[in-house]
């Protein structure tokens, strides 16, 4: 059973295709494991047991008819910021505690069409705002490598579910690092796609110009399979674009060597504040790339430092408008007050958590008359400069290699009182988000406590193919991605 749940998508599909295992068996294995581990980890907001079994049976019927899709019968879990028809979608917020959408996000309907099995909805920071999943209204998710540690965020539930083998792969979203950082902290593979490559339709918006949908998986090949399943221009998302589809076969059969690959190491990503073990592991990974034939050179992304400030203007500004719809009028929580304004205030006061309120206030302030030019317009200029940094870097190198997070998973509760410290957890992931480029986080080592460390490979916009191939090559020569946390049930009980 343990073996079943640790399968990659590619492996699971092979067994399903060969009828060595049925979707039902596979799904039951996951449901059982979820039942066992969920009380300790709390990766899910909703486990969709009945739906999962129903979908598994439907997948088995399709398999019996000889159908074959890359995800047919594969159990997947979905971050709870993606709307799912008839399946409660909370965005980790009290304000949507009982919200059941009438429709599917585009990525969700693509998975449905392919015959994936939905295991449930995954915990995350409220409206994807956070770096530790501690901002969820539905409780803290624990890092499977050490239960007193955060899993990262905001896609913490997704990272934990993949790391602890509670699903075969998970959907996440990345606005400033929300896929990469938890992937790094939980030791899984997480691809943040180029802005526009995957439809946002049905993603409950946090910061529309930064939000991306992607998957957290067990390895780079699975990341390619998920990208292929999810990508493509969507007429319902005007910001989506059509790019040449990813070549999964080319990722699967990536060259064993990296001859001719030019790897840039951005010096600004190795500054003070980075944990020694993280720097060591990332440098070792870069040395490994070099050993495989890559030409490594130092590059500069001089505006890296400004990324955090620009991000914390732009993202809250967009969020302040995106979250205005939660007013208690049409759906979700309503706390009736004495009049309309009072109802708005009480509803939002009770429905939103502290971090969401903080960002709404930040954003509202940044957009206010008299401050707009000094904050929002200026931040957009910085964003353009950061984009130029990446363009200049990619004129010299094919790919950038850097840390994902300055530290390994930090103790639960250690940063909740200090939002600025928490924001710093994303300092190496924000620039790629602002620039709209793609980046993957893959496991590259462990600290002395046994906590995973992630390597970030950043490619230009729509450069996923090369990023995935390099990640795949790296994973052919390393086994960090194969290591599993010790989730011995007896040890968890204590």
């Amino acid at each position: 059973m343990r073996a079943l749940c640790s399968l990659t998508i590619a492996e699971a599909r092979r067994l399903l295709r060969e009828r060595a295992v049925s979707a039902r068996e596979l799904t039951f294995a996951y449901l059982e494991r979820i039942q066992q581990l969920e009380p300790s980890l709390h990766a899910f907001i909703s486990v969709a047991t009945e739906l999962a079994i129903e979908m598994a049976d439907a997948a088995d019927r399709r398999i019996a008819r000889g159908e074959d899709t890359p995800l047919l019968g594969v159990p997947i879990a979905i971050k709870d910021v993606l709307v799912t028809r008839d399946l409660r979608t909370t965005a980790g917020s009290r304000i949507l505690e009982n919200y059941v959408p009438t429709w599917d996000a585009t990525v969700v309907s693509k998975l449905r069409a392919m015959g994936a099995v939905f295991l449930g909805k995954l915990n995350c920071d409220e409206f994807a705002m956070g770096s530790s999943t501690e901002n969820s209204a539905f409780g803290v998710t624990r890092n499977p490598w050490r239960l007193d540690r955060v899993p990262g965020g905001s896609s913490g539930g997704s990272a934990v579910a993949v790391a602890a083998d509670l699903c075969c792969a998970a959907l996440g979203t990345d606005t400033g690092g929300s896929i990469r950082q938890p992937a790094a902290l939980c030791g899984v593979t997480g691809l943040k796609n180029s802005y526009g490559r995957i439809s946002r339709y049905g993603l409950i918006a946090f910061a529309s110009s930064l939000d991306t949908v992607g998957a957290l998986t067990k390895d780079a090949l699975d990341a390619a399979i998920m990208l292929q399943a999810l990508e493509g221009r969507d007429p319902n998302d005007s910001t989506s674009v059509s790019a040449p589809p990813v070549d999964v076969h080319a990722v699967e059969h990536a060259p064993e060597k990296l001859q001719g690959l030019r790897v840039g190491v951005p010096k600004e990503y190795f500054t003070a504040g980075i944990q020694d073990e993280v720097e060591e592991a990332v440098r070792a990974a870069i040395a490994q790339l070099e050993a495989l034939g890559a030409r490594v050179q130092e590059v500069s992304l001089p505006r890296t430092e400004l990324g955090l400030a620009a991000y914390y203007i732009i993202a809250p500004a967009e969020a302040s408008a995106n979250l205005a719809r939660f007013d208690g009028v049409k759906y979700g929580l309503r706390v009736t007050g004495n009049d309309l304004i009072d109802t708005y205030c009480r509803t939002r006061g009770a429905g939103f958590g502290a971090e969401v309120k903080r960002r709404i206030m930040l954003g509202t302030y940044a957009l206010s008359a008299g401050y707009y030019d000094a904050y929002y317009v200026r931040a957009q200029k910085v964003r353009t400069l950061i984009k130029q940094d990446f363009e200049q870097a990619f004129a010299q190198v094919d790919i950038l290699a850097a840390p994902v997070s300055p530290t390994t998973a930090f103790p639960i509760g250690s940063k909740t009182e200090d939002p600025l410290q928490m924001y710093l957890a994303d300092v190496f992931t924000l620039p790629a988000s602002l620039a709209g480029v793609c980046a993957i986080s893959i496991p590259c080592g462990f600290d002395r406590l046994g906590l995973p460390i992630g390597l970030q490979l950043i490619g230009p916009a729509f450069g996923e193919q090369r990023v995935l191939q390099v990640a795949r090559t790296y994973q052919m020569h390393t086994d960090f991605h194969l290591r599993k946390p010790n989730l011995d049930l007896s040890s968890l009980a204590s």
Partner: protein
Amino acid sequence: MTEHETDYEVVIGMETHIELDTASKMFCACSAQCFGAEPNTHVCPVCLGMPGALPVINRRAVEYAMMVGLALNCQIARFTFWERKSYWYPDLPKGYQISQYQYPLCYDGWIDVDVRDVASGTWQEHAERRRIRIRRAHLEEDTGKLTHIGNFSYVDYNRSGVPLLEIVTEPDLRSANEAYAYLSALQQIVRYLGVGTADMEKGAMRCEPNMSLRPKGSHELGVKVEIKNLNSLRAVRDAIAYEIERQTRILRSGGSIQQVTLGWDEARGVTYIQREKESAHDYRYFPEPDLPPLQVDEAWLAEVRARVPELALARQDRYRRDFGLSAYDAVVLTADRAVADWFEAVVAALPNGPGRAKAAANWVQSELFRVMKSRGIPNSAVHTLPVKPAQLAELIMMVERGVINHHTAKHVFEAMCDSGADPQCIVEERGLAQVSDAAALRDVVEAVVAAHPQQVQQVLAGQEKVFGFLVGQAMKATRGKGNAQMIHALLREAIERQRA
């Protein structure tokens, strides 16, 4: 009073919202044709502001807006983007309205309007032509609609997301009549372009004048008031006229005007304070990240420009210049584009059309309008009548050539409106051709003269009215088909022969 009114001048700017008549809404596939529909039946996740929904631009709405902009002589932005306008209200499902702020799609235009005092009730052939500058016209989405019943408010989102064009003038209007003339011209343009009904009663056109008074000759603006909930053109004119009078009275007695938003009480014919002056609202505009910027290339613009027809005022000028029509005729004929097109098709089918345009105008305004009115066909649906413009032209020529007389022609036209048959066919089938045979008519006339000796003597004694009676008798004897001119001449001749 009138004498004093010259001490103050009113300065009016107009903000008008016009719903564009697209098949689907501005940002989703829901039908925009939702007037009168059951509440919340034309809705989807997008126009309800459901979490996760995203807008998609309706290209047709952009084209409609561009057409209005072009008709208003505006510049069309080649590059523009959408912005979010944030405010709270239950009829605004997303908590922001997608609108345009920094770069309106249309800007720096103008419109000429003919100002007449329509309130007087009598037609003025002379009008004053005024040019009203258009500051901007931008596209946005309409909101839902609130209904308050008892302690509850109900919201209907059918209208949410219907494309809305906001048109803002410079403060160029100087009287209630000018405001009226501007709005009717705007309404007519929207209808000519076929991009909206501009029906104020149904809320498809909503006007908010802002106005202030200042001493004549002054260049500074006075304290501004805004007037809302005006549901007809007349209400706009009446409300402005009322405010001019009220404010003039206050100013003349040394008082000052409060900066307020006013409502118009139609029944009582008075304005009332709706809202006291409030601190300027901060809408926190910023570029809409869910929509890419809008680029208008020359080819697209040219394609849209080709769809803008000649508008009413230009047609009126042309009718007067080329056809020699009166201002009245020109205004009536161009009131509706369908009628104007129909009329012009008649003129085009007439040999030397411009020379015969007056006859065509008479036929349209009398017979065509009468038939349509009696059949309950609105002017805009003139093309649904079976009769075609070329057939009326033919009929006009038949009268001119003396094939039938005018009296018969009216009946033939009626028959044409029923069946769509050609006038010749109707005339032949029914044997309605005019009798112009001199010998036959002479027999008829002689018989009439013989039968009415007394009336003949009266005519000879100078009682001309009686001559008409005798003409009528002769016409009756031809069953209305006699050539009236010939009957006149022959009758006169025969009567003269009776002079002793």
